[in-house]
């Protein structure tokens, strides 16, 4: 009993992995105690995913050993990993969308009677109960394809828990979650922690790492930088460890909102159930942020503007001209471009070369007679944007899917910027992107705004908005709830977070982010 207390649940020693031409991991060491929440941070390509792949048995390490709960492995199969109690919750949720919630929860182990026949009533009951325990309200009869992204994420995490995992790897779990869900998740993670379940928590949201983790391990270029107790390091230090040198928080040179004539104007936009009397103006060269909880109406507003969704009533003008687009092509034609939240689904055509992805929006302008693309002109333009946005790619012909997250996002940016829009709507522009790339993206945003483009950013990262925007609008329950002008004394993260929560302060939600922001 005694030694099992002290014995770590997971111990990885001297793990090395060489891919032809790249040392993905060298002599990595990682040790997780039972009931520990262990942060794992590092830039994209630092080796986090490779390390996890080794732990999941997806990749066989060249050297090194793993001890899971006293059992020693040099290499293992995914089955062994599962059996040893390791579960992985990926960033991009991977569920059986055409099947019911219950079946997704019980996949592979549907309850059967003694003749081996599936007992549906029990299945649904069981699934419902399990979800109930997590305080998760989901219709177990519903097909997963009918759930929202947030719901799907929660379901995926719950699934991992149901598979009796002792060690759960959470990879960017909060990427698509609104604050209350994050709190629920964290609360739940903590409750499990008390029961001795260990977590490896991978995230780019450092404040969350500070909020939830006990220890944090930093990787850089496939090597271990160090493992720190969370209370012995601060944000700056962590970033320093990740990046290798000091990077101060990004601060864009703010323009004064009054200069420049209005470009995008919304008057009394109403779409029942989504948003009501939204009035806002974005001026030339101005960057306006919209903050709010999931379902506060911001994303609905953005989608509607771009024609991905019905618009409802209300008047929209761009540079004084009425804006009437009902679908993306019209939207682009009338000067409004939109960077979608899910770049995998709406942003990129992963299988196609970077070159094509960048010029999709401007083909018409590139086309000569009979729609023949003028290739050299195309290459020119693409080269420009690759250079301008600093996209790291071996060639224009590289398949977009093979780029790192940050570079993929830059490609999407290039695609939009190429249309020379008057208005650019960005939805979570830095989601799942490493710190370095984020800074690049912010740089890009400010350059674009200097080009005179009116920019509207919808983001859940308050610090990001504070860094980039001139004004920050907070939406709550479909209405514009409050406006903050950056630079005003009362424009503090705390106040904004409070506003996001709808001003009525419930301690837990208000306090936890503060901690991280103060750090």
């Amino acid at each position, binding site marked *: 009993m005694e030694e099992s207390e002290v014995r770590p649940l997971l111990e990885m020693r001297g793990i090395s992995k060489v891919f032809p031409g790249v040392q993905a991991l060298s002599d990595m060491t990682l040790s997780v105690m039972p009931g520990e929440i262990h942060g794992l941070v590092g830039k994209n390509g630092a080796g986090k995913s490779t390390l996890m792949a080794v732990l999941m048995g997806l990749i066989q390490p060249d050297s090194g050993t793993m001890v899971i709960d006293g059992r020693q492995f040099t290499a293992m199969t*995914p*089955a062994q990993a*599962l059996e040893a109690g390791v579960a*992985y919750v990926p960033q991009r949720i*991977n*569920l*059986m*969308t*055409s*099947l*019911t919630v*219950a*079946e*997704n929860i019980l*996949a*592979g*182990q*549907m309850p*059967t009677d003694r003749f*081996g*026949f*599936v007992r*549906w009533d029990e299945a649904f009951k069981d699934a419902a109960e399990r979800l109930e325990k997590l305080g998760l309200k989901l219709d177990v*009869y*519903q*097909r997963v*394809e*009918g*759930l929202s992204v947030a719901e799907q994420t929660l379901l995926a995490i719950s*699934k991992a828990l149901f*598979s009796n995992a002792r060690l759960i790897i959470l990879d960017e779990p909060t990427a698509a979650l609104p604050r209350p869900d994050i709190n629920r998740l964290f609360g739940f993670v903590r409750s499990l922690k008390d029961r001795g379940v260990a977590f490896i928590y991978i995230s780019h949201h450092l404040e969350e790492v500070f909020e939830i983790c006990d220890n944090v391990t930093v990787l850089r270029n496939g090597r271990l930088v160090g493992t720190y107790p969370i209370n012995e390091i601060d944000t700056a230090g962590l970033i320093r460890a990740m990046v290798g040198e000091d990077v101060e928080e990004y601060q864009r040179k703010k323009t004064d909102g009054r200069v420049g004539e209005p470009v995008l104007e919304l008057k009394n936009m109403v779409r029942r159930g989504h948003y009501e009397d939204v009035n806002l103006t974005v001026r030339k060269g101005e960057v306006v942020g919209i903050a709010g909880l999931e379902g506060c109406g911001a994303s609905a507003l953005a989608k509607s503007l771009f*024609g*991905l*969704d019905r618009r409802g009533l209300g008047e929209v003008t761009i540079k004084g001209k009425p804006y009437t687009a*009902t*679908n*993306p*092509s019209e939207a682009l034609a009338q000067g409004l471009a939109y960077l979608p939240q899910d770049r995998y*689904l709406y942003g990129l055509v992963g299988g196609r070369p970077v070159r094509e992805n960048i010029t999709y929006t401007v083909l018409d302008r590139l086309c000569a007679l009979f729609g023949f693309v003028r290739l050299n002109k195309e290459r020119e333009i693409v080269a420009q944007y690759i250079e301008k946005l600093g996209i790291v790619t071996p060639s224009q012909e590289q398949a977009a899917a093979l780029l790192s997250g940050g570079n993929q996002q830059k490609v999407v940016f290039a695609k939009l910027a190429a249309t020379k829009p008057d208005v650019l709507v960005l939805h979570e522009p830095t989601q799942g992107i490493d710190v370095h790339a984020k800074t690049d993206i912010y740089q890009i945003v400010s350059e674009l705004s200097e080009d005179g483009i009116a920019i509207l950013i919808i983001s859940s990262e308050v610090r990001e908005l504070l860094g980039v925007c001139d004004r920050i609008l907070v939406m709550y329950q479909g209405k514009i709830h409050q406006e903050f002008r950056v630079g005003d004394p009362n424009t503090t993260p705390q106040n904004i977070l409070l506003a996001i929560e709808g001003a009525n302060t419930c301690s837990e939600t208000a306090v936890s982010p503060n901690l991280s922001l103060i750090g």
Partner: protein
Amino acid sequence: MPPHSETQSGIEIGPDEYPMRISNKNDILLFIIDNLIWVFVVIALVIFSLLSDQFLTPNNLVNILYRMAALGLLVIGQSFTMITANFDLSAESTMGVTAMIAALLMASAADGGWGLELSPVLAILIMLAVGALIGLFNGTLITRMNMNNFITTVAMMMVLRGATYALSPGRSISFFPKEFNWLGGGTLARIPLASGGNLVIPTAAVFLILAFLVAFVITRYRRFGRNMYAVGANRAAAEAAGISSKKVIVAVYVISGVCAALAGLLDAGRMDSATPRTGMNMIFIVQAAAVIGGVSLFGGRGNLIGAFGGVLLWGILDTGLNMMMVSPFWIEVSRGALLLFAMFVDALKVSYLRRTSIRKALANNPIGLQDQAI
């Protein structure tokens, strides 16, 4: 499975894989819509019984089942593979080759057989085994060798048909023992009718219904069945849930092979002979029946009851058109037109579902983009 393939066709938002809860009006409506295939079946029955007075006789109705028996078995096998997002185009040839092998085993050398003159039971067992083996082979090639299931089974289709021709060679073999023909050609009972004459119940008709029932129970009430859906819906996720997708896929191909062998048995028994062409050109019709019945070409959707409806519909069209004495020159056209019509009504259903987005699934999936983009 590419996202658009789903939005392509209505029927893939077909009957549910889970027991329907009839709690409110919407659900009842949904239930009807989800089982639209049966509405088609009824409509077809009505139309044809109006057009031809010999149509709506008990014997004729039973005979529809009897005639569709072989097709039905193939549809079962195909549905199993399709639910796991695979095709088995070799089924039609498997049907042919197994029937021929059984015949060769039973026939005397004089009748062109191998002169073994095996007992029917033995022959049947062997043909089923052969079917299973073929399935095993298909499955192994596809899972272990990473070969494309569509094209692999097409190649197998050629190989097996060739084998049938070569084994026979080219000749039909006929006149099997009664026991062999019992399943395919035998009659189970004769029920005297008030209108005079007997209602003849062929074994094949009953067997077909039983087979579909069993298949349905397997796909809905056995773990294996649910694993099939899991694999078809999202192979990676299924793997993550500890389901060995390769095992499942191999298994469904074996099942498909056995079903094809049974189809061969039914056909040979009914015709009392095995021809080198047995089963030829059936596969597209088989897939059509399955798809009309709501089984998705891309896996994870549809159920066996629906597929049964598809078989029935096809049988009714076939019988009806022939009994209406449509000129053979026109019959293909009519069949195609009716098929198109069924698909069209089905499409209406989907657009209705989307308008009154009863199901979030439909509201969510991006069909909308396409409409507005036009």
